[in-house]
């Protein structure tokens, strides 16, 4: 017992001693003593010597209030010689902060003068890091949870190994220069500017919003990317978007390292605030949403009459279209094949789709880019000129060449780009669906496309015989079950209930009660049950689709259900022809071309 007590007492004493030592004898104190010794040795005059005599180590701190929240920078506690020009050739931490004309420093009477005095600016405004830290690991931000490690100097554990060499570079500091120096053409922020140009040249603006610069809505807002993300995250996201979030539909742009770095520096400079702009300027930016600035940043290309197709070709190849689309041998693997677009869509369709993709395919994920109509005309002219049909061989090869990208190798509707398409490609292995539809209807979908979806018009690529052959191939290979004759149901040819305000109101009541669980209150196909259903419930506000479907088919689908999907036969649940007629009037009323007629007829 006594032995244990004695040992315990000594262990406690040793621990106490260690803690005491750590708390009262610091590296920074030794550093400062070393500095005082050196400075005394270097002193040439009495005055110089007097400035170090009698000084004892203490925490040196700069309190900076001019840049956002008050900063307490204690960096000079260790880097005590930062402002002492005699230590230019010493090793860190006792080293003079370099003077450089690039930082605005200038020489006066043979001495360097700083443009950014440490007392006014502190250290972390430019360098990041943890200003209050007194131990190198903490103050430099090596702790993986510290959001701003010393920019371009420190990499944190946990960052991907292969990125580390690219992330150590003084160039990243420009991101912090740009917190104040926002003027265009400023020599100190050339990389930020390059990044901004790349942001527009690579069409990032089409999806991403950055306050004051762009207003894309498809992808995360990057207005505060610099505040939220560290450079390794930004680099990784640009390098390989799906590495950290597998469901991301951002294309892989395969940029050279130089471009990636410029983009990272640019994004790191977006911190949602700007020290050089006034509140009123901020407010004005907030109001415009940056629309004007997009126009200013995307320099319109001069399209000369007569050379539209050539200009369009250049634009299509320069503007990263193939980051998503397939065109010739370049393939982004996200969006449909454009190699013979001219055969599938006409010039008008392409042009309007360029101006607003959702005006033609309501659930498309393609961004609306802000190019001029002249440029869109040129690009449409180019795509429209792609009219050489691919050689059509055996049905299996045709399926592989034309259908597989969306419908998948196994015909299960899970092609390479299927997850980016809404509505998703039909699962051709679902015999219940395929065999319940007459061949003529399937053939129609192939040859004339399905309006409002990504299924294009194959009529000019495949003649009727070829299309039939492909369908036969699909039946034999994917659907497998033998087809039987499809008996048409007894449904009215056209809606017997005339459209009136009363009918629409009754239809809406029925819709809300019976249909909204899957098709959603807004009839957009996103009801609460929709996430469990495959294929997804139809978006009934897709006017292109709804207007192309005749009443007969709507009656058929509602009364007798859609086999192979979750749509039940409502005739079994007590809906009559009149009820369904009301529902159809309601659905049609939402998809009228002009809003006014809808309201007028509804009221």
């Amino acid at each position, binding site marked *: *017992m*006594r*032995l244990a*007590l*004695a040992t*315990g*007492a*000594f262990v*406690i*004493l040793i621990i*106490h*001693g260690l*803690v*005491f030592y750590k*708390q*009262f004898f610091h590296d920074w104190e030794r550093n400062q003593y070393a500095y005082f010794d050196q*400075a005394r040795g270097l002193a040439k005059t009495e*005055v*110089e010597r*007097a*400035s170090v005599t*009698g000084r004892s180590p*203490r*925490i*040196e*701190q*700069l*309190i900076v209030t001019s840049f956002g929240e008050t900063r*307490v920078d*204690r960096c000079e506690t260790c880097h005590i010689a930062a*402002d*002492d*020009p*005699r230590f230019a050739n010493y090793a860190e931490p006792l080293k003079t902060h370099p003077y450089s004309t690039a930082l605005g420093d200038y020489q006066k009477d043979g*001495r360097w003068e*700083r443009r950014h005095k440490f*007392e006014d600016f502190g250290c972390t405004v430019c360098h990041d890091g943890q200003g209050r830290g007194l131990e190198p690991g903490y103050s430099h931000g090596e702790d993986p949870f510290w959001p701003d490690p010393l920019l371009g100097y420190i990499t944190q554990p946990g960052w991907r190994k292969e990125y580390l060499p690219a992330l150590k570079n003084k160039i990243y500091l420009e991101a912090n220069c740009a917190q104040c120096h926002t003027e265009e053409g400023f020599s100190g922020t050339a990389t930020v500017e390059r990044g901004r140009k790349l942001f527009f040249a690579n069409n990032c603006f089409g999806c991403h919003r950055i306050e004051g610069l762009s207003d894309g809505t498809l992808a995360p807002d990057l207005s505060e990317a610099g505040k939220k993300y560290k450079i390794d995250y930004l680099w990784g996201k640009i390098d390989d978007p799906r590495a950290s979030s597998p469901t991301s539909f951002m294309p892989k742009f395969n940029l050279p390292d130089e471009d990636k770095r410029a983009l990272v520096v640019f994004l790191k400079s977006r911190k949602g605030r700007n020290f050089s702009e006034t509140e009123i300027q901020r407010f004005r930016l907030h109001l415009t949403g940056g629309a004007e600035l997009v126009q200013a940043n995307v320099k319109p290309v001069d399209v000369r009459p007569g050379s539209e197709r050539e200009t369009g070709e250049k634009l299509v190849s320069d503007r990263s279209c193939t980051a998503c689309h397939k065109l010739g041998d370049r393939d982004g693997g996200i969006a449909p094949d454009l190699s013979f677009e001219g055969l599938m869509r006409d010039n008008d369709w392409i042009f309007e789709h360029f101006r607003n993709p959702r005006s033609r395919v309501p659930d498309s994920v393609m961004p609306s880019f802000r190019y001029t109509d002249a440029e869109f005309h040129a690009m449409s002219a180019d795509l429209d000129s792609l009219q050489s049909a691919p050689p059509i061989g055996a049905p299996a090869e045709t399926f592989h060449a034309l259908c597989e990208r969306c419908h998948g190798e196994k015909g299960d509707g899970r092609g390479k780009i299927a997850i980016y398409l809404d509505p998703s490609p039909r699962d051709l292995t679902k015999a219940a669906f395929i065999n319940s539809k007459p061949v003529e209807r399937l053939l129609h979908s192939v040859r004339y496309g399905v309006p409002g979806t990504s299924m294009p018009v194959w009529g000019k690529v495949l003649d009727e015989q070829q299309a039939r052959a492909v369908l036969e191939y699909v039946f034999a290979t994917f659907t497998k079950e033998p087809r039987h004759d499809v008996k048409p149901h007894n449904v009215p040819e056209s809606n017997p209930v005339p459209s009136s305000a009363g009918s629409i109101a009754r239809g809406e009541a029925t819709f809300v009660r019976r249909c909204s669980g899957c098709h959603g209150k807004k009839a957009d196909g996103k009801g609460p049950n929709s996430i469990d259903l495959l294929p997804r419930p139809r978006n009934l506000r897709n006017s292109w689709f709804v207007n192309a479907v005749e009443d007969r088919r709507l009656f058929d689908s509602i009364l007798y259900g859609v086999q192979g999907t979750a749509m039940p036969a409502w005739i079994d649940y007590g809906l009559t022809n009149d009820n369904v007629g009301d529902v159809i009037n309601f659905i049609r009323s939402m998809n009228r071309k002009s809003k006014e007629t809808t309201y007028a007829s509804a009221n």
Partner: protein
Amino acid sequence: MGLNPRRDAGTDSDDRASRRRLLGWLSGVGLFGSGILSAFSNFVFIKPRATYGAPQRFTAGKPSDYPDGTRVALEPRRVCIVRDGNKLAAISTTCTHLGCIVGLSETGFACPCHGSRYDQDGTVTGGPAPKPLAWYKVSLAPNGELEIDKDVEVNPGTYLNV
């Protein structure tokens, strides 16, 4: 071993007793030492090592920024830079009475709160002020700027020669 006292009365009882005493002694030293250390640490921690006020030591431009005869109050620093020929000094502008900021006057310093008067060197000439204004240490930082250390008071009349 404490369970069976009879065994302790054996032949090696002296050895055991001295070992016991030694161990007791060692435990005492250990615990007492830790006690001293922790008490000492606690006393040291009472005074903060750094506070968040404005730094007490700061630079205030080049000597050449202050021509001969300058008397200029640096308002936020609460210090007045005085230049007389090649001699420079820094005089506090905090009134020694109740801490108001004294202003410069023809005759020296004047406090707006309760009318304390000081002459050019900060010596009290009137009013309720109990003490003369403090003079702070002025030195030349390595980068050629004046460095004023408000932590170090010097005797009135101590100048820096430049």
